[in-house]
């Protein structure tokens, strides 16, 4: 393995290119027309255009991506997360083209892609699952049986779904039929099949997931757990490791369940086994397995000191886990991750697109930033609006939270509105700080609108606002390349003579 093609964009493509660099491997980025100048293109060693802005024709275009690998002589493909990362046809096509697929082989992914067959695998591995049933028809007798065996509240889920789409909580027998009909409609339009199943709904459940790794020689290990209970409509907002509410015995049990599930399918590469944790019953239930690198992988990396991207690459080139993970499987301290989104939580979380007039990421001790964008970059309307992730480590959870606050306060993003004010408010929230949260908590607290940008201006800021007013368009966009000197553009309504924007300190 010498050259890795990264079939992705944004922060994860940047992250993977850096993992390649650590191992002395060349990296190849792919880009759509909307990403011609994007940061992942600038960080990789080489880049190839794969199509127009629309994902379907670029980042999901298997043919164009394989052609890019051929053109550049790449001998391996890393899919990142999202896009083609869990697409068996892509994994097969990569291997058929004689390239190394950095991930589990299609034959490993296939049996666990559907939620019902994954459940069967869990049961075979002795991993606990929540009471559930496949819904074959909507006859009253069938629904009565569901009410009896599963009980309420229950959750209706599309069998081949993901991202929470089509999922619905039902509290009463009389609401079951309409909920199933709605879910079937959504599933039919969004997923491979319109098949549904129902599952016992765990009240106040936490989302706990186990990082697993498998090599090509049958060794499967776990790399501990993450807690991602702070979610908005099933999208994770804050992730952390370790899970703050587990006892040592509970942690050992849930991590072993994750390992056992992965071992059952002969897992290869890095993956995540997701569980619901019932904080009252103190039980965990298998949810699903994600057969790729997760967005939140850095919290695990920071706490155990293992580079998961490098581990993926080393597994793919045939190294043994015993060598890769030696001495790196102890949890130390606590890590928190927040996702910086270009969205306005105060206006119903409406996504933002535009140019980052400025993006200054924090530089705080024990804080890591995985950013996909810099000052001057475009945030296209076509893709997920996540700009960056900030990961803070602390000796304990409180220390990590205080460092996160310092990092968020030091972050400046101009040009698009972000969720930073909401994240700062979350870091100070009493329930969050007490770990008294569950997967429905954020929706119940700030479901449709959350703290947004304020209006507070300091004297210094007011003065600059006034200066910007008289100066007309200051030729000051982005900033940060070190050599920029402000120039003043003549302004027709400015009658002040002799006014000049100073740049003292410039050579």
């Amino acid at each position, binding site marked *: 393995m010498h050259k890795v093609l990264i079939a992705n964009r944004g922060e994860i493509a940047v992250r993977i290119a850096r993992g390649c660099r650590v191992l002395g491997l060349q990296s190849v980025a792919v880009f759509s027309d909307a990403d011609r100048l994007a940061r992942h293109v600038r960080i990789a060693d080489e880049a190839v255009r794969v199509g127009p802005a629309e994902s379907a024709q670029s980042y999901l275009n298997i043919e164009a991506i394989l052609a890019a690998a051929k053109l550049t002589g790449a001998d391996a493909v890393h899919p990142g997360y999202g896009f083609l990362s869990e697409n068996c046809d892509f994994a097969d096509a990569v291997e058929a083209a004689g390239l190394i697929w950095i991930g589990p082989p299609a034959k490993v992914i296939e049996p666990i892609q559907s939620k019902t067959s994954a459940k069967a695998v869990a049961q075979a591995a002795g991993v606990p699952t929540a009471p559930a049933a496949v819904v074959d028809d909507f006859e009253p007798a069938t629904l009565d049986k569901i009410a009896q065996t599963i009980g309420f509240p229950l959750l209706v889920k599309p069998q081949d779904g993901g991202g929470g789409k089509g999922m619905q909580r039902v509290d009463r027998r009389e609401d079951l039929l309409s909920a199933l009909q709605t879910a079937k409609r959504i599933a039919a339009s969004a997923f491979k099949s319109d098949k549904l199943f129902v599952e016992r709904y765990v009240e106040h459940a936490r989302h706990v997931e186990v990082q697993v790794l498998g090599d090509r020689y049958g060794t499967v290990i776990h790399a501990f757990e993450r807690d991602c209970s702070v979610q908005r409509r099933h999208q994770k907002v804050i992730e952390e490791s370790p899970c703050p509410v587990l006892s040592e015995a509970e942690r050992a049990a849930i991590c072993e369940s994750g390992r056992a599930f992965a071992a059952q399918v002969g897992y290869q590469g890095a993956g995540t086994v997701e569980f619901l944790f019932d904080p009252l019953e103190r039980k965990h239930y298998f949810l699903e397995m994600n057969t790729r690198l997760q967005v939140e992988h850095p919290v695990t990396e920071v706490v155990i000191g293992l580079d998961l991207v490098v581990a993926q690459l080393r597994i793919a080139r045939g190294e043994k886990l015993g060598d890769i993970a030696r001495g790196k499987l102890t949890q130390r301290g606590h890590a928190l991750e927040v996702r910086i989104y270009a969205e306005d939580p*105060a*206006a*119903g979380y409406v996504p933002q*697109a*535009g140019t980052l*007039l*400025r993006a*200054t990421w924090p530089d705080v001790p024990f804080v890591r930033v995985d950013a996909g964008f810099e000052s001057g970059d475009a945030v296209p*309307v*076509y893709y997920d609006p996540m700009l960056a992730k900030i990961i803070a480590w602390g000796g304990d959870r409180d220390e990590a939270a205080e460092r996160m*606050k310092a990092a968020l*306060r030091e972050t*400046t993003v*101009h*040009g*698009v509105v972000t969720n*930073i*004010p909401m994240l*700062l*408010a979350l870091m100070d929230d009493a329930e969050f700080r007490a770990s008294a949260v569950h997967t429905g908590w954020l929706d119940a607290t700030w479901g449709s*609108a959350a*703290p947004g*940008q*304020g*209006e*507070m*201006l*300091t*004297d*210094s*800021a*007011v*003065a*600059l*606002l*006034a*200066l*910007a*007013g*008289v100066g007309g*368009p*200051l030729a*000051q*966009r*982005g*900033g*940060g*390349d*070190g*050599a*920029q*000197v*402000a120039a003043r553009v003549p302004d027709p*309504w400015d009658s*002040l003579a002799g*006014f*000049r924007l*100073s*740049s003292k*300190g410039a050579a």
Partner: protein
Amino acid sequence: MKRNYQSAATSAEQPTALEVSALTSGDRLQVTVKQGDVEQKLGVTAVQTPAGDWLVEHGGIVRPVRLSLDRDMTWLSTSQPADARSGTTRWRRVEALRARHGHGESQVRSPMTGRVVQVSVSVGDAVIKGQVLVVVEAMKMEHALKAPAEAKVAKVLVKVGQQVEGGQELVELE
């Protein structure tokens, strides 16, 4: 020269409106800020660093400020006391006349880059507070732009299917 700004904070029911003016002499700025009937005067020194940050000295204390300009929008960030949520605010330059009438937003703007999927009003329509004027779609999410107060539609500046940019004016109310 006086300039009028309005806060672009979407959480604000009644966005703060400011009238500012500045007299400059070298790095010195004599600033007058008026909010409602309250007027404040400030004397500061403002210099820009080679990296683009601003340093504003007021009463012998120098504070860093980050500023970006985008058409009629000014972005400002300052370091904040520990209890503040974030140091970034946005200010839109508005016409003096509108700011004086105190109607708040009479121009309804798209909050994002996207596509107009619905135009629910025509010129001359009387609208009530909260009535949907235009629906914009981006990233598969629809966003309804509503009338901030009772008003009459003065101009409709977009059509269904049209691509619009964040901040672009869609409807003007009077």
